């Protein structure tokens, strides 16, 4: 069963298609990273899911309920933490948690206390006096303490220094299974940070979902290929399907990205195109993969 479903979901602001007729399903129990550059439409998509914005086209559902029909009680099962979200800044951390607690029948005081210590949050300090990272941690704590089924984090790492960012991610990773929300959706333009968290990734650019698949599968099918020949080598024309960003820095060298690499036999398959040449294949980080995708996307559809 999917925790999130989108069908033909779109939202435009004037002429700008912030989210462009998007189809998406996020399985329950997964950690889905929604990646993409600034202005890709990630925040808009999450806001559409949580009924903070109304769709121009299509529908979406969250935990089985249509987004536009989400009721107050549904938010007892959903956590949402976003960069720039309004918080009652005049409250201290403990006042803030005390204010939130009565709204959730499943609020776990012990978990809240544990997370307060784990996140190193000063209970008696007003939210307005906290650093951006600490404020995000307080918001996250208030979203985790009632053990939501779904946690939505919108750009949680934005503007955080590396230490706090690591602290934040470590906090999420170290949550014991019972304390973790069943499904996580994290949007970020900072791919490195979510690489170690996500088991499912989607790449959004220009409001369109270019890629949506398990992170391991994505990493598995992308390879950076370099072909070095004793004699001049040339790229086949037309390029085989799935070969991207092909370049020839010199007459003996060819480089390209293979987006359809088969772990078993892929290298041999490429070598057969360049007889006598030495083929080296290198795995790619998600960051590198998405840079390729972003460049290729300019003017093109999903890959």
């Amino acid at each position, binding site marked *: 069963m999917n925790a999130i479903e989108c069908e033909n979901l779109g939202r435009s602001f004037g002429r700008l298609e912030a989210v462009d007729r998007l189809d998406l399903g996020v399985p329950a129990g997964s950690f889905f990273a929604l990646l993409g550059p600034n202005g890709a439409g990630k925040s808009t998509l999450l*806001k559409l899911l*949580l*009924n*903070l*914005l*109304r769709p121009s086209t299509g529908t979406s559902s969250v935990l089985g309920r249509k987004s536009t029909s989400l*009721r*107050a*009680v*549904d*938010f*007892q099962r*959903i956590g*949402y933490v*976003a960069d*720039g*979200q*309004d*918080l*009652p800044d*005049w409250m201290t951390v403990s006042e803030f948690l005390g*204010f*939130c607690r*009565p*709204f*959730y029948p499943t609020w776990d005081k012990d978990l809240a206390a544990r997370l307060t210590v784990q996140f190193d949050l000063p209970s008696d300090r007003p939210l307005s006096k906290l650093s951006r990272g600490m404020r995000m941690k307080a918001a996250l704590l208030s979203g985790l303490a009632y053990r939501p089924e779904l946690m939505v984090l919108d750009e949680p790492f934005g503007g955080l220094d590396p230490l706090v960012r690591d602290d934040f991610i470590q906090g999420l990773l170290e949550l014991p299974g019972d304390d973790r929300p069943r499904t996580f959706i994290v949007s970020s333009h900072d791919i490195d940070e979510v690489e170690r968290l996500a088991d499912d990734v989607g790449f959004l650019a220009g409001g369109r979902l270019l890629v949506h698949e398990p992170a391991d599968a994505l990493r598995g099918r992308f390879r950076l290929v370099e072909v070095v020949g004793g004699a001049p080598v040339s790229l086949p024309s037309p390029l085989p399907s799935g070969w991207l960003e092909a370049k020839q820095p010199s007459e003996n060298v060819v480089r390209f990205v293979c987006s359809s690499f088969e772990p078993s036999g892929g290298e041999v398959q490429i070598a057969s195109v360049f007889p006598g040449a030495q083929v080296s294949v290198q795995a790619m980080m998600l960051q590198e993969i998405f840079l390729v995708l972003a460049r290729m996307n300019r003017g093109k559809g999903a890959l």
Partner: protein
Amino acid sequence: MRTVLLILKKDLRHLWVLAILGVLFSFLSTLGWYWDLWPRSSGMLVFVVSQIAPVVVLFVLSVAIVQSDPPVGDRAFWRTRPISPGLLLSAKLLLLFLVFAVPSLAVNAYLAVSLDTPLRVALGMVIESTGMIAVESLVFAMIGSVTRSMMQAVAATLAAFLVVVAATVLVPLPLFFAPWRMDLPDHAARMASIGLFSGLAAIGLVVHQYATRRLARTLVLGAVLIPAVLACASHWPLSIPMPQAASELQAKPGTSDSVQVMLIPPVVTWSVGYMNDPATGRSVRSHTMALNAALRSIPEGRIIQIESISSAMRFGDAQPLPLEQIGREFWPYWSSVAQATAVCRQLGLQPPALPADAVKQPRLRLFNVPDETAVAHKGEKGTLTATLKLYELQFRDLARMPALSGSRWTHDGQMWRIRRMAIEQGKVVATLQHLRATSVLITEGAARPDSRPDQYRFALALINRSRGEFALGYHSWSSMDAPQWTIDINTRNAEFTEFWKMGGSPIAVPTDGSWLEGAELVILAAEPVGYFDKQVVLRDFEIPQVADRPEADAPPYWQ
């Protein structure tokens, strides 16, 4: 309910300073006058503290309460928490009610009890003041609900104000845009209707915004709804189902037959003035002629006043042509001699011999005819009919109290208190304060809020019965202290310069304070005791033309 209380508690904790200020100003702005807290020497400061500050606090707090959990934008904390818009709005409205309506209700209930106010007037006071503050706070809350910050709310309010001012200047607006006008016959119903409909419009818009969070639609709805409800309320004022006092009018007095309306020379007066042009709604300069008359054969000791005059010309079988009535402020008023005689008659005293008034009374002008109308009917003869609705005023005992500083009298929604009573420079000077419970919902009796001067004319008398002496007082000046809705407070300064024996012979002004210690101050109020009609009919009457006027630039008719 728990959610409502949690949000209310949260907002109170956040905005407690403003809430306390709101409650404080609710009390001070009204009770400050009643308790006489304001120093008379600091007019501007008092004005700011008692008039401006409460409105500012009302605005800031109403907006802040709403914007602490705003229904606009997609960043509000409550939007992703288990808080329904309905419960959130209920919490906000409940807090507004607690901070503004409850103090207002308490203040007016306290005032009503303090002034020994009749139940129906007290009810009117409470409904009017609480309703008014509720409508104001709802309108401010509505502004808060469609803006994201206090600055935006201030800017939106200023913009709305400028739009109204510009519209008022550029377009001849109908009367509904001037609800502050008190000179309309159905003023109270109009005010109540506008208040009620504005409140409904404001709450409708707030509910719409909370329920849908669609700002553009709310703004469009507001742009349609606000003028519509104001127009509806103005054109179809609600009848106010307030219990009214039993009519104070008695049977027509026997004097009515003897009173005569007589034309007096100069029968026609010309003047240059400004008339309302019905075509444009603007005032235009115009020559007007007026027909002059006077009331004659009024029995001694009686005071006859004019309620209204309706005049019309009929030419042949045509429809009667109505003629414009002159404002009542330019009708003649009674003389001080007539007042003294009437007061003495009421108090059972021998009226002293007084010289006639030196002040020249204005003529009784029956109607105005603009030059354009006169020209249109040049040479036509018709029948002029002027019907005067007259009434007789009588001075009745209202209050009696020892003639000493600090004395007070309270009854029937009114209080008189003597701030100062002293013998100075050959006369007795008194400073009195008159407090009156009032409400626009009351359309009869002393609690009626309008300011028709002859309905609230008071006479003062000092009587020392042990010495068999008395004096009649004259107002030197008066001032309105509290420009409040439901309590009208006036300071009246009076002088007693002539003293008489009860038989009517004059005596010297006392010089020693013991005269006052044995005296009582009697306050008498003029009240209408009966109405009757008189008609003036002129057949074969031809409207004089401007060309016939004797002088090119006759003085205005009020001279």
